[in-house]
């Protein structure tokens, strides 16, 4: 299902645009339900080697034995795993003339933000891999990257073309039996991105993936595997959208990052799945497992802007295994209406002189619930480990909630850990100050929220920061009356 650039170009030239600009994309969807046959069928469809099929089946075996976790501070109707279709692919008929064709709504979203994907791609020099309804539809700039020895493709292509890399690293950070949703993902993942940066290479451009759920009644299970070899550097962006539907859609992704000795990975996410209607109907369930492994002197930095999804359940984590490795987590989570977010990070300090920083900003409005849940663990051999955590919450209106559940476990006497959290609201005097200077309340709030989130926004790559800032504004629209 993955295209090479050549194929894509050829197809574009020969194809008639019979489906028009706004028509739905006809897709090939598997019957609903999950069984061993479906897992095998997905694997077959992807023309995977046998080891991969076995790996999936193993995961499926674990999954069957697991129960859905309930400890998170979120309430929702549990998805019926037998009512979801586990594979949906856009038919070859309508590939991408330009990116705008792929998702008019995505385009609209960006129009609203004042940036078109296409434009962004060209101007900002970003290589994009688009994953729509589980299948990777286009990867751009592959050639330019290949010159540097960088592999950036869909994971199904990687399984075929670079089996040695995939075999070695897949499941090494997030094993199949890690948790309920990771096991499910390992069994049925249909596509995702794969990236390998060779030794000493500094990736010349931002790599980017866009996820999109298009088809109704499907779940999206993509898998991202990113390997930064010794002393390399990569900055990776991830964005997501979904159309508005009344039913809940499931998104259960797994992201594995491997930073070998001296490598640096910057992973930024702008998550804007459909958050459900004003009355709390519909929306995407976002249950994601993201984890990074840091070897000696490596650095991984997670930055996330979470504005979408009805229910978010996500903890991008860092295992600081190597000495002197660094983990960072910068997050803004905005919830409005009936959204619920339980998000945070885990910093596991194993190596000596490891350092971690956690900055989490939660903004809740409407009737939403926003939780920070984090773990800082200093193991007994992690001498001179250092952690700084700060979680601030901003409440708007008296029907929302903000919660913090930080777990701090120290087993080494040389550990230095700091944790602080505050909860506050937007001061009337702050609003008054703005109003007095001719700034309307809505704008004033956007201004204050921006200030509140600045520390995190600053960590985003330039072009994303602008986008995120506007996204914040949009998601809080109408939250203050």
């Amino acid at each position: 299902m993955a295209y090479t650039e050549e194929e894509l170009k050829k197809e574009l030239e020969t194809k008639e645009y019979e489906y028009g600009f706004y028509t739905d994309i006809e897709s090939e969807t598997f019957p609903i339900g999950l069984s061993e046959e479906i897992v095998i069928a997905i694997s077959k469809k992807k023309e995977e080697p046998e080891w991969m099929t076995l790996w999936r089946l193993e995961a499926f075996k674990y999954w069957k034995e697991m129960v859905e976790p309930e400890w998170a501070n979120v309430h929702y109707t549990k998805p019926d795993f037998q009512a979801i279709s586990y594979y949906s692919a856009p038919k070859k008929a309508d590939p991408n003339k330009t990116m705008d064709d792929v998702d008019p709504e995505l385009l609209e979203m960006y129009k609203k933000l004042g940036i078109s994907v296409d434009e962004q791609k060209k101007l900002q020099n970003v290589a994009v891999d688009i994953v729509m309804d589980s299948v990777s539809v286009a990867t751009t700039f592959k050639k330019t990257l290949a010159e540097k020895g960088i592999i950036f493709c869909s994971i199904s292509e990687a399984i075929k073309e670079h089996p040695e890399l995939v075999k070695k690293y897949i499941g090494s950070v997030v094993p199949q039996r890690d948790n309920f949703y990771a096991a499910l993902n390992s069994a049925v993942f249909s596509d995702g991105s794969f990236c390998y940066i060779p030794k000493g290479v500094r990736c010349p451009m931002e790599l980017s993936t866009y996820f999109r759920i298009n088809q109704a009644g499907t779940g999206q299970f993509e898998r991202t595997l990113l390997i930064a070899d010794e002393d390399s550097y990569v900055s990776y962006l991830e964005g997501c959208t979904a159309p508005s539907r009344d039913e809940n859609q499931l998104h259960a992704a797994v992201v594995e990052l491997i930073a070998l000795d001296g490598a640096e990975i910057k992973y930024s996410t702008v998550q804007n799945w459909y958050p459900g209607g004003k009355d709390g109907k519909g929306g995407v369930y976002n249950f994601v497992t993201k984890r990074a492994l840091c070897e000696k002197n490596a650095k991984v930095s997670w930055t996330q802007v979470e504005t979408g999804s009805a229910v978010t359940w996500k903890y991008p984590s860092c295992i600081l295994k190597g000495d002197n490795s660094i983990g960072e987590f910068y997050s803004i989570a905005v919830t409005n209406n009936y959204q619920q977010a339980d998000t945070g990070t885990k910093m596991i300090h194993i190596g000596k002189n490891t350092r971690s920083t956690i900055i989490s900003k939660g903004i809740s409005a409407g009737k939403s619930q926003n939780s920070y849940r984090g773990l800082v663990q200093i193991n007994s051999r992690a001498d001179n480990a250092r952690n700084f955590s700060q979680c601030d919450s901003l409440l708007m209106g008296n029907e929302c909630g903000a919660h913090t559940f930080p777990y701090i476990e120290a087993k080494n006497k040389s550990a230095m850990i700091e944790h602080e959290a505050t909860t506050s609201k937007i001061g009337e005097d702050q609003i008054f100050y703005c109003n007095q200077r001719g700034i309307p309340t809505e704008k004033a709030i956007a201004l204050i929220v921006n200030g509140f989130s600045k520390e995190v926004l600053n960590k985003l790559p330039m072009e994303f920061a602008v986008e995120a800032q506007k996204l914040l504004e949009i998601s809080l629209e109408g939250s203050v009356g």
Partner: protein
Amino acid sequence: MAFENNVDVEHPVHDVRTAAIKNFEEKGFPSKKEEAWKYTSLNSLQKIDFSIFPKEENTLEYKDVKRYFIHEIDSYKIVFIDGIYSSYLSETTHDGVDICLMSSALTKPMYKQIIDVYFNKIASKDESLTSLNTAFSREGAYIYIPKNKMPKKPIEILHFSTGNEASLMLQPRNLVVVEENAEVQIIERHQSLTKNEVLTNAVTEIYAAKSAIVDFYKIQNDAATASLIDNTYIDQKDKSVVKVHTFSFGGKLTRNNLNFYQNGEYIDSTMKGVTILGEKQHVDHHTLVHHIEPNCESHQDYKGIYGDSSTGVFNGKIIVDKLAQKTNAFQQNNNILISDKASINTKPQLEIFADDVKCSHGCTIGQLDEEAMFYLRSRGIPEKEARALLMYAFANNVLSSVRIPELKARINKLIAKKLGVNLGFDL
């Protein structure tokens, strides 16, 4: 553990006890799988065959146990030996205030009205260890302070275990009712006198009415074979001020469940603690402050110093209800690890449903400042003393709010002893 069946069926609170037994039988002892007991395991205690009701009465001479009292000052004393009231060592009163025994309060008709209103009302009916206490407790302190009254002197509650019987499980039950505008100071201490295993599962209910002031001090400096599970439930009404200080230096396993419920406005709740541990000791502080109504404050300040293979847990939970606007909740937990084998797990938790609030928590784990050490040592203070001095300073915030000077001096001595130094002056 076998529970003997000599429960008094004719007892006035028999129904309450039956319900409690049922709840405990359903739930059993909490296991590590429960979120609230994630870091504290009761397995080692459950292996011991404790006897619940001592078979014989034991006596003690005052001179042998004098050092466990704050003997420098005059005080009311309620003393229990192996869970049984010792009239010989106690000094109770009915002069204007009631400072007496739970057993008599539960059976005598004159107390019925108060027992009906307060007994087992704020204590959790869901929590299994509290239920265990409700079911099997026979004795404890009963303190009733009427409107506008204040007892002339502080009250000391002491529980001694003699260890004359092999392993003992104690279930003391205290009830403290402080009426409008009244005030009381209470010091509570559990002390094991031998090397036999003791498990104390205590429940204390405190009711502070409008503008009442309650100072409660818990001294936990027991023998290395004694374990304590302390469940304290506090109900506060408008403008009341309740302060609970917990000093944990001794014991094998100590678990403090301290729960504040603010059922009124302009309430002030303070909980402070100093924990200094060594060897294989384990202390778990579990605090809950439930802000139910507007304009209230809560302050928490817990300091911990952990040496040897000791483990410490702090789990502070603040809930702010939707109605509780203008809440000001502050929580701080600072820890120092002085040994490689010691560990600390802390979980400061906020659950906030109101928007116009000021809530913050801070938590640190660190070491003594090397530069401060150097400063002291360069002025001729030996390393051990310098270290102790810095630890004193670290804990001093908590000590400064102790309102009984003799108690403060006593705690200073306990800290000095625990740190193994004599500074020759009080701080």
